[in-house]
C-alpha cells in the first residue's frame, strides 16, 4: 500500500475526490493541511485542484509559500513522486518544481468540460500503466490553464520527452504545443491540467483517469519487491 499525502490548501476543492480516487486504487491516502511541515512518511504527494488563496495575485503564487511546500520540495528532490492536478500543477510551476507557467485561457472563459489528451510519456510514476499514444477523455475545470514557457524551455521539454499529456481534437486554452501536462527533468514531478480523479469510475462518465492512481500502487508494489530482494534472498517476497 502506497502512502499518498493529499495536501489541502485553503481553497482546495478537489481534495476529497483525489483522496477517494487514490483509496479506490488501493492506496493509503490521507490529508495533510498546508500549515503542517511533515508529510508523514508519504510515498507519493498529490497537490489537488481548486483555487488556493482565491487565485489571488496569480494562481498558485501564494500557496507555493505554504509551510508544507518545504517538505514537498524535499520529497521531490529526493526523487519522490509528486503529482499536481490543475491548481496543484500551477503551484508546482510557481514553486519552480516544474518548468513554465499557467496563464489565463486564450479565449478568456472559465472552461468546465471534457477534453481529450494523448499520453506522450509513460516513463513517469503516474503514466506507467498507459500506452504511449493512448487518448483519454478527462475533464478540465480552469480559467488559467494556458501552459506557457520560453522557446528554449519548450524545445528542451520536447527534446527530452517531458511533455506527458497533449490535448488532441482541440486545444481548449491555447497552451503552447497543445501541452496538457509536463514532468521535470528527473521525471518524478508531474503536472496535469485535466482532472483524472474525475474519471475513475464508469458512474462518473468513464474511467480513463483511473490508471494515474493505479500507477502509484503498481509502482509502489514493484519498488517494494525490489527493495526486499536487495536486502537478501531470504526475504524475497512471493
Amino acid at each position: 500500500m502506497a502512502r499518498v499525502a493529499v495536501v489541502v490548501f485553503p481553497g482546495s476543492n478537489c481534495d476529497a475526490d483525489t483522496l477517494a480516487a487514490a483509496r479506490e486504487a488501493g492506496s493509503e491516502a490521507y490529508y495533510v493541511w498546508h500549515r503542517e511541515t511533515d508529510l508523514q512518511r508519504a510515498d507519493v504527494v498529490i497537490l489537488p485542484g481548486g483555487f488556493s488563496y482565491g487565485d489571488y495575485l496569480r494562481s498558485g503564487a501564494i500557496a507555493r509559500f505554504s509551510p508544507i511546500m518545504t517538505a514537498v520540495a524535499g520529497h521531490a528532490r529526493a526523487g519522490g513522486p509528486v503529482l499536481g492536478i490543475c491548481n496543484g500543477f500551477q503551484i508546482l510551476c510557481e514553486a519552480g518544481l516544474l518548468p513554465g507557467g499557467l496563464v489565463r485561457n486564450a479565449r478568456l472563459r472559465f472552461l468546465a468540460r471534457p477534453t481529450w489528451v494523448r499520453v506522450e510519456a509513460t516513463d513517469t510514476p503516474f503514466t506507467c500503466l498507459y500506452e504511449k499514444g493512448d487518448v483519454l477523455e478527462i475533464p478540465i475545470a480552469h480559467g488559467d490553464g494556458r501552459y506557457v514557457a520560453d522557446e528554449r524551455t519548450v524545445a528542451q521539454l520536447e527534446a527530452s520527452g517531458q511533455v506527458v499529456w497533449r490535448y488532441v481534437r482541440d486545444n481548449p486554452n491555447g497552451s503552447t504545443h497543445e501541452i496538457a501536462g509536463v514532468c521535470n527533468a528527473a521525471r518524478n514531478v508531474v503536472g496535469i491540467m485535466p482532472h483524472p480523479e474525475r474519471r475513475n469510475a464508469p458512474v462518473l462518465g468513464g474511467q480513463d483517469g483511473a490508471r494515474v492512481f493505479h500507477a502509484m500502487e503498481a509502482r509502489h508494489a514493484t519498488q517494494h519487491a525490489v527493495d526486499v530482494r536487495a536486502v537478501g534472498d531470504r526475504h524475497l517476497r512471493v
Partner: protein
Amino acid sequence: MSRYRVEVRVMPRATLLDPQGQAVQRALHALGFGDVGDVRVGKHLVLDVQADSRDEALAHARAMCDRLLANPVTEDYDLAVEAA
C-alpha cells in the same frame, strides 16, 4: 528608518498573448474608440515600505517582486519609489 511608497507595475510578458487586453480592446472599439490599438492589462501594487534609504527600499521591493509579486516566466515588472 523612513517610510517609502513603492509602486509596482506588473505586466504580462510582451511576447505572450494577453486575452484580457484583447477583450478590453474589442469593447473599446465597440464603444466607438476606434483609434485604440494594442491594449494590455496588468497589475498595479502599492506598498508602504520601511527602509533606511530609498535605495534600500528599492532593493527590498525588487526582492519582493523576484520572489512573489511577479512571475519571471510570464511577467515583467518595473518599480517606482518615493518618500511617503
